[in-house]
């Protein structure tokens, strides 16, 4: 695929913009850290269009860039933990083939939250953070579902786009 670098650039730019847009939406759920995970949309699409390797690269590039642009080092560490765990689980579920985009996306959303929670536990050195687990589980399911619906629609429409070598 000749234009792969160009497509990768577009995907990275979109993921970055989604990170920014998400930051602009001021929603408070009473629990820190709950957000839609719009950038995950690009990761899911990349995972299905290309493969886990490219999705991992996109995820890491997106997190590091958005971390330096809009956040701080802590934000990068949290996001990396969540992003990598989430991607690993999504790649596994996708490989098994018994889940649709929806299931893969939900698992990704939930695991993203779990990864961040684990880092939060290590940082504040208390298991008490686990109190947020149920809220984060439900939030991850809901956001994962929304992202799954959108991913499914986008994937249907860009079926002709081929990013595999």
């Amino acid at each position, binding site marked *: 695929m000749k234009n792969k670098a160009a497509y990768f650039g577009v995907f990275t730019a979109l993921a970055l913009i989604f990170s920014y847009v998400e930051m602009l939406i001021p929603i408070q759920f009473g629990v*820190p850290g709950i957000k839609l995970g719009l950038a995950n949309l690009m990761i899911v699409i990349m995972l299905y269009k290309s493969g886990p390797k490219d999705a991992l690269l996109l995820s890491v590039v997106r997190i590091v860039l958005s971390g330096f642009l809009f956040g701080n080092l802590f934000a990068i560490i949290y996001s990396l933990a969540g992003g990598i765990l989430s991607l690993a689980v999504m790649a596994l579920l996708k490989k098994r083939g018994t*889940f649709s985009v*929806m*299931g893969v996306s939900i698992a990704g959303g939930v695991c993203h939250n779990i990864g961040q929670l684990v880092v939060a536990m290590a940082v*504040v050195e208390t298991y008490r953070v686990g109190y947020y687990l149920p809220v984060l589980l439900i939030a*991850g399911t809901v956001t994962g*579902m929304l992202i799954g619906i959108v991913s499914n629609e986008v994937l249907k429409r860009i079926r002709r786009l081929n990013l595999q070598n």
Partner: protein
Amino acid sequence: MKKNDFILIGIILVLAVSFIGYHFLKGKDESAEVVITVDGKAYGTYDLAADQTININGTNTLVIQDGQADMKDADCPDKLCVHQKAISRDGESIICLPNKIVVTIEGGKKSELDAVAK
């Protein structure tokens, strides 16, 4: 959506609900204590029943009132801990990540029996 997707959602929801149920069943304890730790080290223990205002390291202000602990002010830019709800049940916590402050309710130490024996 495949069948497995629904099974996945079901498992996650059951997990979440059972966690919530566990926390609610533990219930409210009148003789609970507010334990504050900064950077993993103990900072202080306060009585949840007594109304008071605690200044934590000059960065955060915790107010205990009507059996509830609430973070009223913080010097961090995101103010996530200030936006969190007041806590009162055993195991609940308010966490301020920028200042590494954890405020937790602990109700297990003082049981009602001890209070009667006194």
